[in-house]
């Protein structure tokens, strides 16, 4: 029979071994003021990281496993899925990352780069493993994975492994310091598109909207109790050209009611660019319809 103390030592040793193995899977992306961000070595010449935390510049120095500094250039970034890719000037011996399924309660290891060629480790549980979700920036993330780990700022962007050595994805910060994982499936879907185009094209009308209650007197004619009020318009944007003005209350876009924010977001994928679209709205107590043509969202 195994003594409890032996089990603990075994667990600890296993975590140490896993962390050492994972050192090849991380790289430190150097930032200003001696800081860094972690990147996950995706392929021998590609490092993926957290888009929201990567400064807007084109060239970076990356500290790879063992401490060698390699130059890297930005190959693409997509705020909607929070994925950025750097291409390394010299290829590395990259480990192969096998995708793993997240399960709530599973013990996981989040690896960060220590900035001098080594790995840092955090362990905890998968707090939540849910279905796909829509980010506020308009992207679809294949699984909702929340960890109960606290992560350092410098460790964001590193890989997250389960106990079998499978990779759940890349760590990132959600609101209130919550640690999320961008799943491998999302990376596999987005990285090739980003490498091809440098960005993920999205449809665009050039409006900022906020949900409002439809005034009681108009509910019957509107056929719904809430809509999206136009709070801001980009000058000469597609919506402005179509004649939308601030204060208009959008009721539906191509027949999809605007109280379904996620469905609406789904209508602005890359294939929507150039499509004529019908906007039903309330203006000055009247129901009107306007035609707009979806354009491509400008960069930045």
């Amino acid at each position, binding site marked *: 029979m195994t003594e409890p103390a032996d089990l603990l030592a075994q667990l600890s040793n296993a975590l140490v071994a896993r962390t050492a193995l994972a050192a090849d899977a991380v790289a430190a992306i150097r930032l200003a003021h001696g800081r860094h961000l972690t990147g996950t070595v995706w392929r021998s010449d590609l490092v993926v990281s957290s888009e929201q935390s990567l400064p807007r510049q084109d060239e970076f120095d990356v500290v790879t496993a063992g401490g060698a500094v390699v130059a890297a250039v930005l190959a693409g970034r997509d705020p909607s899925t929070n994925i950025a890719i750097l291409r390394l000037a010299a290829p590395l011996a990259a480990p192969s990352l096998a995708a793993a399924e997240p399960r709530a309660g599973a013990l996981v290891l989040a690896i960060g780069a220590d900035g001098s060629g080594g790995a840092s480790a955090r362990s905890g549980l998968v707090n939540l493993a849910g279905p796909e979700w829509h980010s506020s920036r308009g992207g679809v993330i294949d699984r909702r994975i929340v960890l109960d780990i606290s992560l350092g700022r410098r460790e964001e962007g590193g890989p997250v492994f389960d106990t079998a050595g499978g990779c759940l994805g890349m760590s990132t910060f959600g*609101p209130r310091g919550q640690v999320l994982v961008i799943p491998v499936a999302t990376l596999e879907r987005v990285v090739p598109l980003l490498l091809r185009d440098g960005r993920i094209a999205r449809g665009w009308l*050039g409006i900022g909207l*906020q949900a*409002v209650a439809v005034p009681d007197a108009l509910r019957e004619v509107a056929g719904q109790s*809430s809509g999206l*009020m136009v709070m801001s318009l980009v000058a000469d944007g597609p919506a402005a050209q179509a004649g939308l003005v601030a204060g208009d209350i959008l009721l539906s876009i191509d027949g999809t009611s605007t109280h379904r924010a996620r469905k609406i977001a789904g209508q602005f994928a890359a294939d929507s660019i150039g499509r004529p679209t019908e906007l039903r709205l309330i203006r000055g107590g009247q129901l009107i319809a306007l035609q707009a043509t979806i354009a491509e969202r400008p960069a930045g």
Partner: protein
Amino acid sequence: MASQLQVAVLALDALRRHALSQLVAEAGHLVVGTESEADVVISDGDRPAGETRATVALGGTEDDVAGMLSRHPTARQLDAALRAVAAGLMVRSPEAAESGFGRLRESCGQTLLTPREHDVLAALAEGLTNKAIARRLTISLHTVKFHVESLFRKLDARTRTEAVMKAAERRRRETITL
């Protein structure tokens, strides 16, 4: 306790520096030269390298400073943050904590504001009295009071300032760009 603090304002943009200096004055404190022995430093964005004085960063991303506020704090928030940081405390605004890769929120139907309530809110933000709001929107004083009460209830606010701030926070969180 209401002593005046000496505050250095670090902002590259001259207009922004001017606006922040005015805000510091409005908060009741004294703007001093950037190299002076300031009690607290305000930095527009992340704190510059080598700055070691107690700092309140506005709209920064690095969390190794004593104070982190949004890019556009109110004079009251700035005053509170400057005093707290000068006293050796740390300050974080909920807005800074809300940053991060988040989900698309489906707004809660119960507490959605009506377009009229948005009009009243805009007037509140300008500091108008109920009477002035009634005049601007050409509605009765009674109706204004009705809308203001409804705003307080929907935003869970007790004062006009709180209502304006909570609405701004909600707008920031829930604005959808298409």
